[in-house]
């Protein structure tokens, strides 16, 4: 059709591009809140210890809170196998190239989990500090990992994932003496970006800081249960 045949018009939309994603995220969050299930979204760069943290968390929560996991990766089901070996009901999302998880993928994964038999579900997002920060998945709380070998400047270089976190775990803290990582500097960068975030130093190998992390999970789970009973 040429311009002469058509009539030009315009419409003002003022629509948020991510509104559709956020609608699904809100739906997931409401459903899980009603079921008394805490949903935690874990963000970090690849190799900063998300799966190892979840393995240690699964061992420590055994007999205390029933845990499930949703694992996002570009390829392979390795993480699924690792979490299943810990006795955790898990769903692997293989994104096939997509650099982040979206709310619709998580909503579908939640349907595959035995939600009524769970207290807490962890989403292990695709290892990436940029894109996942933009997509809400329905989580009650967001946790971002910063591992010691990465260097404290990652907070400056990739601020989005740290800005939106409720808690920031400084992982692989057992490696501190072997690196030039300055934990004080890391904390001051985090404080200028996100002063309300809980900061926990942790090693999933030595279990240093694990109790503080578990206490936070119990507190968060308690806040969900109080919402259900309110």
């Amino acid at each position, binding site marked *: 059709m040429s311009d002469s*045949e*058509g009539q*030009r018009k315009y*419409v003002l939309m003022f629509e*948020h*591009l991510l509104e559709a994603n956020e609608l699904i995220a809100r739906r997931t969050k409401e459903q899980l809140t009603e079921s008394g299930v805490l949903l935690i979204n874990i963000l970090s760069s690849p190799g900063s210890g998300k799966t190892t943290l979840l393995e240690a968390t699964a061992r420590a929560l055994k007999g205390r809170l029933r845990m499930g996991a949703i694992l996002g990766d570009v390829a392979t089901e390795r993480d699924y196998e690792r979490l299943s070996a810990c006795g955790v009901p898990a769903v692997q999302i293989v994104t096939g190239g997509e650099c982040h998880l979206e709310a619709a993928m998580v909503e579908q994964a939640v349907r595959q989990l035995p939600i009524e038999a769970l207290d807490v579900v962890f989403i292990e997002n695709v290892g990436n500090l940029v*894109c996942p920060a933009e997509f809400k998945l329905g989580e009650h709380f967001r946790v971002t990992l910063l591992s010691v070998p990465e260097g404290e400047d990652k907070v400056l270089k990739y601020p989005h994932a740290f800005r939106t976190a409720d808690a920031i775990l400084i992982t692989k803290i057992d490696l501190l003496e072997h690196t030039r990582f300055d934990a004080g500097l890391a904390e001051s960068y985090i404080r200028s970006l996100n002063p309300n975030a809980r900061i926990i130093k942790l090693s999933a190998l030595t279990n240093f800081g694990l109790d503080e992390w578990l206490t936070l999970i119990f507190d968060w789970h308690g806040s969900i249960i109080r919402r259900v009973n309110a």
Partner: protein
Amino acid sequence: MARPFLGGELTLHEFSLAVRLIEAIGQKAEEVGAVKVSLVKLRVGLATTVVPQFLSEAFNVAKLGTIAEDAELEIETDPIKLICWNCGAEFEADNFFAECQSCGGIGGKVISGDQIVIERVEFEVKQQ
């Protein structure tokens, strides 16, 4: 819906945003009875993770074969507005670690510039 890869092995989140944009304007075009979308105006805040140039390139791929095939995408960026953590003054910035003009404190709570908004769509309808 199968999403084609843009370039290398990893798709950028800009591509999935471009697909969302096409879906949103396609829906709007249908509502208003458009036969063609000619212009899309988008506002992207500097506090988002979006690189406008990548989003433009992704849009030019995602629009192929849709009602927005001939559409031009205009992106305007919005500055980050912060409320100083230290003194509470409001200031504009181009990054999260900017210095407050009032007290020299670093950073603040983001109150604006963290959104991606479809502002305006221009289209053609059939002559009655």
